[in-house]
C-alpha cells in the first residue's frame, strides 16, 4: 500500500525522488516550489498532522535542509512521511505553510530565529526564544559558540573584584 502511494506521488509530481525505509518511513526529496502543493495533497490523503518542521545545516554543500514530518491521526497506518528540501544557504527563503497546517507557526518562527530562514507570508517573525541579537544565527555551523560565550560571559566581572 505504501509503495502504491509512492508511485502515485512520483507520477503526480515532477522533480521528486522518493524511497521507503523500514516499512514505515517514506522519504521524499523535492524542490521548494512544490512543497505547498505536496502538503495539500497529503492533507487530502488524510495525513492530517504536521508532527514537526526541522532544519539541518549542510555546510559542505552550502545548503540548508528543511524537513517536514507528517503522520496521520485517522488512518490505521503507522507511516511517517518525511519531506526534505534543500535551499540556498546564502539567501534562505521559503514560502510559509501556515495556510495548510496552522501549527507550523512556532516551528517556522524557531527556524527563522535559529537558522535565519525567511518564511515569506509568515504573519509574525518576531523573536521566540532568544534575548540577544546574533550576527550569525546561532545554530548555523559557522557560528563559533565557544568564542562567543567566552567573549560575552567571561567579560562580565565578578561583583567585588572590579576596581
Amino acid at each position: 500500500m505504501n509503495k502504491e502511494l509512492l508511485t502515485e506521488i512520483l507520477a503526480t509530481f515532477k522533480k521528486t525522488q522518493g524511497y521507503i525505509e523500514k516499512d514505515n518511513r517514506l522519504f521524499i526529496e523535492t524542490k521548494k516550489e512544490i512543497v505547498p502543493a505536496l502538503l495539500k495533497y497529503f492533507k487530502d490523503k488524510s495525513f492530517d498532522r504536521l508532527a514537526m518542521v526541522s532544519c539541518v545545516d549542510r555546510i559542505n554543500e552550502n545548503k540548508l535542509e528543511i524537513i517536514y514530518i507528517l503522520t496521520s491521526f485517522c488512518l490505521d497506518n503507522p507511516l511517517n512521511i518525511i519531506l526534505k528540501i534543500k535551499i540556498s544557504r546564502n539567501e534562505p527563503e521559503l514560502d510559509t505553510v501556515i495556510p495548510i497546517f496552522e501549527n507550523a507557526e512556532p516551528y517556522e518562527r524557531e527556524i527563522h530565529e535559529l537558522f535565519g530562514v525567511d518564511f515569506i507570508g509568515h504573519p509574525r517573525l518576531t523573536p521566540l526564544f532568544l534575548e540577544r541579537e546574533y550576527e550569525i544565527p546561532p545554530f548555523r555551523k559557522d557560528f563559533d559558540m565557544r568564542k562567543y560565550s567566552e567573549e560575552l560571559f567571561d567579560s562580565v566581572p565578578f561583583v567585588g573584584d572590579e576596581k
Partner: protein
Amino acid sequence: MDRNKISKWLKGPAKMGHKYSLSAIYFCTGCGIIEVPPVITARWDAERFGVIPVASPRQANLFLITGYVSLKTLKAIIRTYEQMPDPKYVVGFGSCPINGGMYWDSYNTIKHLDKYIPVDGWIAGCMPRPEAIFIGVTHLWTLIDKDMAKGYVKYREKYESYRKNQEQILGKLEWKPLYPIRRRK
C-alpha cells in the same frame, strides 16, 4: 529543646525565626526541579526542617536555583529575586549555576550566577541527591547563625555593579532599579 537553643531563642528570636522557617518559592529552572518534589513530599519530607514551598515571591525567603540558567530565565530570576522581602537567601543547586556545567560553551546560558545576583550557598553535583538539599539547608542554618548569609545586604550595597552586569548581558532592563543608583562623578 536543649538549654543552648532556648538561650539562642531568647537572644535573637528573629534570627531563629528566619533559620527554622524557610519558605522556598516554586521556581523551576532546568532539570534540578525534578529532585524537588520528592524533597517536599512524603519520601524526604522537607517540612520537618521548616522548609515549605510557597507560591508567591512575596512570601518566600529561600530561592533555589535548580539548574542551568538561560538568558530568559535570568530575567525572570532577577525579577523574582527583587520581589522577595528581606532577608532572603539564594542557594545554587547543581553544577550549572556554579560555572556553567555542561553548558560551559553555550551561546545562551550564563556561566556564573553570582555575577548577576548574590548567592549564599552552593550545592554541587549533577544532579545532587535530595539529601544534599538537606545538607545545604543545615549549612545555611550555620551561615545564618554566624551572620554570614548576607547576600541581600551585598545586593543592596553593590546594586550598581549588579545592575551594570545584568544590563551588560540582557541589554536595557524594562523595570526600574530596586535601590536608587548613585551617579558616579
